[in-house]
């Protein structure tokens, strides 16, 4: 069952684009160049309906930053990039001519930091606009195959809904695409929809 109308999805996309703007500002200060982050679309689906196409997961390895959020709704957030793209982002963040081996050494820390910046910027925009407070756990980074990631996203029966944000990230003219996925329980999705309703109700 999908509880969200086009207006709900438009409101969520706008909230997340404000978050993306904040994340781009922080990242541009780290890399010393312009960073573009946009959220072209938001989708909410049943976790059983997600597959490699929904998340553009092709073959290869993926870098996933996980963070838990709690508050009026609880969510597990996962930021996904291919490992190749993750390493390019790390290279841009470290800002030097490092070898691949050296980059791999910093991959874990730099990707946790990237995840922390993007996830917290999105969640803080949501908290500001919807007037609530969210607490977050420390980020964790893992590298896994597409199958392992899909299995992990579908395995928790208590979180049957998935909100997917497609993310376009350009650092120093280099374009990468990833996904930000929120795993939500039924109650959390209902609470989130109630907050979006309240927000839309203020002006419609």
């Amino acid at each position, binding site marked *: 069952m999908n509880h969200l109308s086009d*207006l709900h999805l*438009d*409101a969520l*996309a*706008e*909230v997340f*684009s*404000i*978050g*993306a*703007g*904040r994340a*781009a*500002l922080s990242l*541009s200060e780290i890399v010393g160049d*312009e*960073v*573009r982050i*946009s959220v072209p679309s938001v989708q909410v689906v049943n976790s059983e309906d997600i597959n490699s196409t929904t998340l553009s997961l092709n073959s290869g390895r993926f870098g996933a930053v996980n963070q838990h959020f709690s508050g009026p709704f609880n969510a597990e957030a996962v930021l996904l990039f291919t490992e190749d793209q993750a390493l390019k982002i790390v290279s841009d963040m470290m800002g030097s001519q490092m070898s691949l081996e050296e980059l791999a050494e910093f991959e874990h820390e730099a990707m946790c930091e990237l995840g922390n910046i993007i996830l917290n910027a999105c969640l803080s*925009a949501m908290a*500001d*606009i919807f007037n609530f407070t969210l607490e977050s756990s420390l980020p964790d980074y893992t590298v896994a195959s597409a199958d392992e990631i899909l299995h992990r996203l579908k395995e928790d029966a208590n979180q049957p809904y998935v909100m997917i944000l497609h993310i376009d990230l350009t650092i120093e003219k280099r374009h990468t695409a990833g996904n930000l996925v929120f795993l939500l329980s039924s109650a959390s999705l209902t609470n989130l929809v109630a907050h979006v309703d309240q927000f*839309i109700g*203020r*002006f*419609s």
Partner: protein
Amino acid sequence: MFADSSIKKLLIVDDSKVSRMLIRTHILARHPEWIISEAACGEEAIALVDSELPDYCTMDINMPGISGTDAAEQILSQHPSVKIVIFTANIQETHQVRAHSLGTILVAKPVTEKSIALTLNHFKDSE
């Protein structure tokens, strides 16, 4: 009969319907007499400015098609009297500098009473 000079025409340019609704609601709460039109992209905005000649314009940056700053530059080259505020979540230095170089200001989203007040002050100050 003379037109009432307090009645202003505002064009809201934003690809998000929710953002356009929010800006419209906040502005009409303060200026119920203003005439408001909307565009969802830069190209549509350029065409609307030609036909409707608004006094003021709020312009998002990240939209499908040309960027809001490029649209603002084109509008100002044809209609320098239009007062434009770049109203965006894209708050990096490069955009702030570009906004100023065009003679506009950049106001950071979200759309709130505070950000709307900054926008209206800019319109008023540039009269």
